[in-house]
């Protein structure tokens, strides 16, 4: 959580996730997204994937956690958008990062992304937060 007002260019404390197939099953149940590419290896490969992959929306959930835990309990998330650019597989760390791009009054615009161990940004997005 922030202790001082944010500045342009400030980086959010990194959030590193270590997703497992168990977590994908948990997320499937919690979200209601039971598409088999997230827990059935054979099915995932039959669609041309290297194996089961993370739900895009699970990565969105990680990034929402990154932003809201940094912004604090009084902050309001106004908008949040993510594009899923690359595949992430369980067993591979998913690094969630962000940087403050602009501040106007109490509104901060953040650039957010997930990065794989090779440094590829597998999810990119933006968040608009009202800080109080």
């Amino acid at each position, binding site marked *: 959580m922030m202790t001082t007002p944010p500045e342009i260019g400030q980086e959010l404390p990194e959030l590193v996730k270590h997703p497992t197939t168990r977590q994908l099953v*948990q997320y499937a149940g919690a*979200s209601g997204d039971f598409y088999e590419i997230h827990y059935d290896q054979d099915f995932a490969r039959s*669609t041309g994937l290297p194996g089961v992959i993370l739900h895009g929306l699970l990565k969105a959930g990680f990034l929402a*956690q990154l932003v*809201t835990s940094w912004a604090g309990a009084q902050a309001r998330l106004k908008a*949040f*958008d993510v594009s*899923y650019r690359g595949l992430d597989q369980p067993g591979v760390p998913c690094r969630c990062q962000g940087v403050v791009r602009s501040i106007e009054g109490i509104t901060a615009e953040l650039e957010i992304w997930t990065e794989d161990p090779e440094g590829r940004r597998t999810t990119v997005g933006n968040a608009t937060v009202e800080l109080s």
Partner: protein
Amino acid sequence: MSGAVGGSTVVDRLKAKTGWKGGERVTLVEAGQVRRFCDAIGDDNPRWREEVPPTFVVALASETPDFREALDYGKGWLNGGDRFEYLEPIRVGDTITARSTLVDVYEKQGTSGGLLFLIVETEYVNQHGRTAVRLRGTRIRR
């Protein structure tokens, strides 16, 4: 992969569905459902004991639009992206009505063949009749 002829037919049939609305789905937001969602993400912020976390609404989405036609295109679905707009917080105990609309359908050529894009907008309205969240999702057949 779909052939050019079959593929274009699928695209035309889906394009004709633009504006299609799914049924309304009404859900009482329960503490246990929110907790399981937070556990699945690994987000233990105490704020989410009363309020729902930003992506929770996906668990309240209206019935998956009937896009059986889309299954004739490519081999599988991918999620292209999601855009959330927050107008009011959703809290445990709220009753949320979700309804989705197919707003756009288009095709693009990717590096390994055609991609079919379906853009679905879902509106989440609370028990006071006010829109709490709008979600615009991009779903891809490839």
